[in-house]
C-alpha cells in the first residue's frame, strides 16, 4: 500500500518535472542522430569532373564522339559496382572547374582533348599519329585525388582497350569488403549509445531522491514511518520505467536510421533493466552526497563523464584487464556498470551471441547494482533519513 502510493506519487512528480524528463529521454535519440550524421558525413566520397573537349569524328555519314562514350562508360562502371563512392560530373569551363577543385568541391578534373575520337579511330586503323593526351588535375597530396585519378585512369584504360579492340594480357578479379560487409560503422556505435540513454537516467533518478530532502518533505516521510526501503523502492520502480522507455526510444531512433536489431528482445530488456537499476543505485549515492537538485547537476557531471567516456559508451574504449576471472577480464573500468552492459549488448546485438555468452556481464551487473544500492542506501539513510 505504502509502496504503491510512493510509486504513484513519484510517477506524477516525474511526469510533472517535464523538462528534466524530456532531457533524459531525448539524449539517447539525440546522440544516435548525431553519430549517424557524423558517420554519414565521414563516409568516403570522390567527385570526378570531366571536361569533354572532343570534337568527334565522322565515319561515313555517322558522327561519333568517343569522349562522350568514355563518360558514359565511366558512369556505367560506377553504377555497376556496389557501394562505389564515386560521382561523375561534367563541366564545360576549365577555369571554373579548377576553381572548384582548389576549393575542394571536387577531387579530380579530367580533360578530354579535342582529337580524342580521331586518335582512337586512327589508332584502330593503325595510322595513329601519336599518343592522345588526357589531362588530370588535382591535389597530389590528397588521398581523395589519388583514388579519383586512379579510378579515372583505370576506367579510361578499360575503355580504350574496348574502343581500340586491344586484348587483355592479364585479368584482375577484385572482391570488395568493408563498406560492403553486413555490419556498418553506425551499427557498431549503437550499443554504446543505447547505454548512454540509460546513463542519462542518473539525473532524473538523483533529483527524484534528493527533491524530498530539498523540499524537506523527507520529514513528512519520516513522521509517517515510511521505511528507507519503501521510499527508495518506490522511486526506483518509476525510474526503471523511465530507463526502459529511454532505451526503447533510442533503439527506435537507431532502427529508423538503418540499425538492424539482431539479438533477442528478452535478453535486451534484461540487460536494459539491470543497467537501469545499477544507474538508479548509483544515483542514490549521488543523492546521498547532495542536498539540492542544483548540487546533483554539478556533482553528477563527474560520474556522468566517467561513465560516458571511460566505459565505451560514447566511443569504443579498450583497456587491458588486471587479470582474468573465469576468462572474463577484470579492470578498473569494470567498477562502472556500463562497461559490462556495453560488452553484453555488443555480444548480443553485434555478434549475435546468446544469453549464456553474456553470463559474466550479467553477474558483474548484478554484483555492481547490489554494491551501489547498499552503499547508496547506507549513505542516504545516514545523511538524510537518520535521526540526528
Amino acid at each position, binding site marked *: 500500500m505504502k509502496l504503491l*502510493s510512493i510509486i504513484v506519487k513519484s510517477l*506524477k*512528480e516525474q511526469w510533472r*518535472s517535464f523538462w528534466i524528463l524530456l532531457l533524459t529521454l531525448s539524449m539517447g535519440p539525440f546522440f544516435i542522430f548525431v553519430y549517424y550524421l557524423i558517420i554519414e558525413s565521414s563516409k568516403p566520397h570522390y567527385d570526378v569532373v570531366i571536361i569533354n573537349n572532343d570534337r568527334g569524328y565522322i565515319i561515313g555519314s555517322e558522327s561519333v564522339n568517343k569522349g562522350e562514350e568514355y563518360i558514359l562508360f565511366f558512369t556505367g562502371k560506377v553504377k555497376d559496382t556496389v557501394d562505389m563512392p564515386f560521382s561523375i560530373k561534367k563541366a564545360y569551363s576549365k577555369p571554373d572547374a579548377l576553381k572548384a577543385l582548389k576549393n575542394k568541391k571536387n577531387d579530380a578534373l579530367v580533360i578530354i582533348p579535342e582529337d580524342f575520337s580521331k586518335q582512337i579511330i586512327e589508332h584502330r586503323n593503325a595510322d595513329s599519329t601519336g599518343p592522345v593526351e588526357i589531362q588530370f588535375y588535382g591535389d597530389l597530396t590528397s588521398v581523395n585525388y589519388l583514388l579519383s585519378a586512379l579510378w579515372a585512369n583505370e576506367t579510361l584504360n578499360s575503355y580504350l582497350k574496348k574502343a581500340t579492340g586491344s586484348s587483355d594480357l592479364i585479368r584482375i578479379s577484385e572482391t570488395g569488403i568493408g563498406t560492403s560487409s553486413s555490419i556498418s560503422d553506425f551499427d557498431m556505435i549503437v550499443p554504446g549509445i543505447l547505454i548512454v540513454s540509460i546513463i542519462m537516467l542518473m539525473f532524473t533518478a538523483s533529483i527524484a531522491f534528493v527533491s524530498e530532502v530539498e*523540499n*524537506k*518533505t523527507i520529514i513528512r516521510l519520516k513522521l509517517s*514511518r515510511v521505511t528507507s526501503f519503501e521510499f527508495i523502492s518506490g522511486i526506483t520502480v518509476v525510474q526503471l520505467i523511465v530507463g526502459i522507455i529511454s532505451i526503447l526510444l533510442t533503439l527506435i531512433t537507431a532502427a529508423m536510421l538503418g540499425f538492424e536489431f539482431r539479438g533477442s528482445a528478452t535478453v535486451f530488456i534484461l540487460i536494459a533493466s539491470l543497467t537501469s537499476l545499477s544507474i538508479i543505485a548509483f544515483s542514490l549515492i549521488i543523492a546521498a552526497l547532495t542536498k539540492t537538485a542544483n548540487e546533483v547537476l554539478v556533482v553528477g557531471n563527474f560520474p556522468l563523464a566517467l561513465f560516458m567516456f571511460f566505459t565505451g559508451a560514447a566511443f569504443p574504449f579498450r583497456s587491458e584487464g588486471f587479470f582474468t576471472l573465469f576468462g572474463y577480464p577484470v579492470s578498473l573500468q569494470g567498477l562502472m556498470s556500463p562497461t559490462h552492459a556495453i560488452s553484453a549488448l555488443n555480444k548480443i546485438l553485434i555478434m549475435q551471441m546468446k544469453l549464456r555468452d553474456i553470463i559474466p556481464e550479467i553477474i558483474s551487473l548484478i554484483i555492481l547494482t547490489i554494491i551501489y544500492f547498499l552503499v547508496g542506501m547506507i549513505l542516504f539513510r545516514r545523511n538524510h533519513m537518520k535521526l540526528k
Partner: protein
Amino acid sequence: MNSLPGEAVFTITSLKKSFKDLIAVDNISFEVHKGEIFGLLGPNGAGKTTTINMICGLLPATGGTIEFQFCEKKEIRSFIGYCPQENIYFPKLTCLEQIVFMGNLYGIPANECRSRGLDLLEMLGLTNKLKVYARNLSGGMKRRLNIALALIHNPPILILDEPEAGLDPQSRVLVRNFIKSLSKEKTIILTSHNMDEVDRLADRVAIMDWGKIMLTDTPYNLKNSIGEGDVLEIEITEDTGGKTDSLISALRHEYNVIRSGNSLIIKAVHLIDKIHGITSSIKEAGLTIKEIKLRENTLEDVFIHLTGRMLRQ
C-alpha cells in the same frame, strides 16, 4: 486513546539535548494533559523546536525521558500530527493529492483519505484549491495546507509550530477557531512568538529560555503573578496646592506610582480590583479625575519580564 480526561498524555522528565558543545535543551520537565492546549513560549533559540522534534521522535534525546501514556514510543509518530514552523509540502502535487498521499502512508484506505482530506481542506478554507499544485498557493494557503497535512491521520496529539506565522488577519481567525474546535478531541501543543495568539488559545503555557523551562502555568495566573502587573493611568485636574504630592506619598505605601505632568501612572498586580480605592483616595485628596485608562498585564509583559530584552538568534 485510553487516558482519562485531564490525565497526562505524556510526561517529560529531565529531558536534555546537546549538539556538540551547544546545550539546546537543558534538563526540562513538564507534562501535557489530555484535551488541553499547551503553549510553549520562548525567544528564538530557546529550544522549543528541538523539544518538539524530540516529542515527535524526529530527534533522539541526549538524556531524560518522554513517557507517553497511551502508546509505545516507537508508535508515537503515528499518534502525533506535526505542523512544522516551515511550510513543508510536495510542490508538484495538488492539495488533495498530497493529503491523500500522506493518508495512504499512515495506512488509511484511499477512499477514507479522500473524504477526510476533503473535510479538512473545507474546514481550512481550501475547497476551491483542491486541484491546485501546492507550489502555486499563497503563503497563507500553504500554511493552512500544512495544518491539514498534520491532521490527515486524525492523530490524538497535534503539535503546531508557529501555526499563525505568515497568515493574514482573516486566515488567523479561521485557523484560531479551527484549533479551538480541535481542542475538544485532541491534545494540542503550540509554539508561537505571538503572545496574543497563545493567550487566546492556550490553557497552560510554559516559558522557555536558554534551553530551560522558566515557568509553567495558565496565562491568567502568569499575568496575575509575574511582572509589574496592570497599568492604571489617571489624568487629574491641575493642582496648585501640592495635593497631588501628598496623594502620591500616600499611594506609594501600596503601589508603584509615577507622576507624568498631570497624570499618575500606577502599576500593580490585579489593579482592576483596586480602582475603586484609588479613585476614592483621589477624591478625598480634593482632586478631580479627568480620564482613567487601564491596561491589563499581558503575556508579553510576563514573557519580557522573564526572558529580558536582550536580542537572541
